[in-house]
């Protein structure tokens, strides 16, 4: 099978859907002739022109608000933030309008809006360009949150995002963008709320988010040499969250570690741990463990940045500790 990078696969999803659906247009900074800072729209301007690939000034609140109105009136806008950190400048539109309008109109008004951007710590992007912030957004009702971790999932989830009627945050971790994976030629969709079991095992479960998935897989590989079989679950979407797959895994292993590079307090790991404790208490052979990035702004210094977030060694050690509980 051919292999595509994460970005190529997502771009292919966008191209396929733009071909089928003339109401889809993309808005953002440098997404026109430049093709996007991360090549998210490379080649699309030549194909679909300035009406459907519209460069904007640096004014997130303005273009997110306009796209909100466009979605309400029947278009299907895609906002490309380049760095997802800058969605913070449009929080009022996002939370008060985009997330709520379907509820406030009793479902008469749809909100088929996709908000995409790169997230995560990596490459010395420093404190304004390294945020993930998805714990905020999974807290809110009315917004879907997709967190693909490979090219195959990126395409399938983006296709689903571009065909639904809910606002979707499509988060692309910058360390995963150039990672290749087999992607079939045939069209496919991946439904939201369906976790992937990235590695099967019976001794402990790791729920890994975003860039932590490949690291957890490496930790699982390292521990298999020590005789422990680690199961790695990639939720793929955080809202909706596929808790059932996690519960089934915990039923099998009795031990759970949640690895997430975002801050621990009130994070996704806290939510998963509570649900597991509540719904699978009698399956737990050890307290649920979490491994998170430090709760601090992201430093520029490469060694400091590296020390900030979990890596293969710290995940492996956390799993050893969990197995010894």
């Amino acid at each position: 099978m051919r292999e595509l990078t994460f970005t190529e696969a997502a771009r292919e999803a966008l191209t396929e859907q733009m071909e089928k659906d003339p109401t889809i247009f993309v808005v953002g900074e440098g997404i026109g002739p430049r093709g996007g800072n991360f090549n998210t729209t490379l080649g699309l301007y030549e194909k679909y022109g300035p009406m459907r690939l519209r460069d904007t000034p640096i004014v997130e609140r303005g273009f997110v608000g306009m796209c909100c109105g466009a979605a309400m009136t029947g278009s299907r806008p895609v906002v490309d933030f380049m760095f997802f950190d800058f969605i913070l400048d449009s929080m009022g539109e996002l939370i008060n309008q985009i997330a709520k309008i379907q509820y406030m109109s009793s479902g008469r008004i749809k909100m088929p809006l996709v908000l995409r951007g790169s997230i995560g710590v990596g490459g010395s992007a420093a404190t304004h360009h390294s945020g993930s912030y998805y714990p905020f957004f999974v807290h809110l009702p009315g917004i879907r949150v997709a967190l693909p971790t490979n090219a195959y999932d990126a395409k399938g989830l983006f296709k689903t995002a571009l065909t639904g009627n809910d606002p979707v945050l499509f988060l692309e971790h910058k360390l995963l963008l150039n990672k290749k994976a087999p992607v079939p030629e045939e069209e496919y969709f991946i439904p939201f709320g369906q976790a992937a079991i990235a590695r099967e095992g019976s001794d402990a479960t790791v729920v890994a988010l975003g860039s932590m998935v490949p690291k957890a897989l490496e930790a699982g590989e390292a521990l298999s040499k020590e005789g422990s079989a680690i199961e790695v679950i990639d939720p793929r979407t955080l809202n909706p969250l596929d808790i059932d797959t996690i519960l089934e895994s915990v039923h099998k292993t009795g031990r759970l570690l949640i690895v997430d590079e975002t801050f621990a307090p009130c994070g996704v790991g806290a939510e998963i741990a509570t649900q597991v404790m509540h719904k699978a208490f009698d399956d737990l052979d050890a307290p649920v463990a979490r491994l998170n990035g430090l709760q601090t702004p992201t430093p520029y210094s490469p060694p400091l940045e590296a020390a900030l977030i979990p890596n293969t060694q710290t995940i492996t050690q956390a799993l050893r500790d969990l197995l010894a509980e």
Partner: protein
Amino acid sequence: MAIEIAMPKLGWTMEEGVLVEWLKKDGDAVNAGEILFTVESDKALQEVESFDSGILRIPPDSPPPGSTVKVGALLAYLVQPGESAPFEKQAAAKAPAPNAAVQTTASATPIARQTSQATVRANEAIPNISPRARRIATELGVNWMQLKGSGRTGRIVERDVRAAARPPTFAPVVIPPPTQITPVAQRAAQELGVDLNALAARFPGKRITREDVEQAAKENFTSHLKAEPREQTTSQRAPMTPTRRVIAQRMSESAHTTAPVTLTTEVDASELVRLREQLKADKVASQQPIPTFTDLLAKLSAHALREHPALNSRIEGDEIVTEPSVHIGIAVDTERGLLVPVLRDAQNKSLRQIAAEAQELVARTREGKASGDELRGSTFTITNLGMYDIDAFTPIINLPECAILGVGRIVPKQVVMDDSERVAVRRMMFLSLTFDHRLVDGAPAARFLQRIKQLVEQPYLWLVD
């Protein structure tokens, strides 16, 4: 929303029960209050009714009738018309939450037991155990109180429980399936000496009729003749029934914890025999049940126990608890094994009342219909082996009671009468009293038995009650 139907907890000590039979089928409409299935547990057969209305859906992996099921285990669902059952939607989905709740309650029992044995292990702390290990210990029947944990803080984890679990046995498991037996067939089987369990195993799921029993009786006879020279060479293994397990557990608990002493005395039961004969001969009251010797002894024992309350007491921790009421347990031999239904407040009841109640209680116990409550809470037990020509024996105390009265056969004997030294033929009987020396000493127990003897020989003393 589908409503889960689980194995109910029908008594404090119930940890599992045999799902005997579904009285509704998969797909049947059920009204609240209708009987769903029967459960054998804690020595009683009980009917379980539905709390809700709906369509009964039994998952394909639900425990089959005849199997032993943990309390709280999922048996079926009630769904609304048109609704699909959870096992159809998602075969892999599981419902841990309700199970978790029930299992937590179920596994609270060992802790409660631990507390009641406070005298033995007073300050010993309960070990830490992970929820999963506790669940698996319950499933495997492992007593985790004894285990040493290998977890970081000494916590007992799954691997400790699994290591402690006995290796699985590969003995052939023969569980007779539940079978309906017509009352006529039941009587015929008794008369012809046909083993109904064996017959039921031969015709699983079939209703056994009198013809089947008679046929089996003939075959038995012939096969017996043929089989006689051949001897069985392999030992047979079968799992203990829940009743057998409870009996085994209670008997060994009694044997290990009590300090039993048995006193025997020979009593002159002639007056008791005469009393019974007069009651039998009374045409006016011919509709009333005639008290059995056990009933008579229950009545007079209640009288004696009120005068000797120490024999009506029990040990709880470091305390001695004496009950104001006398609840007499009557040992009954049933198909399933020894059961002890309880005649409550015997001290307040007339002989007629006791006779009527005991007759009904014993009949229901034999049919397996006595409820768990009816088989609990006795303060003194009477066990009568007179019908098997037994004279005296050493009964085992029915914990937590203090004493048990064993009744022997009544036989005519030549006896030297105290007053005149002349010899007369009297109806003599041995009484064996086993008492717990932890609770009472030999002399008070002997005085109690002596009083029983007096009340047997002079029934007017208690008939005025």
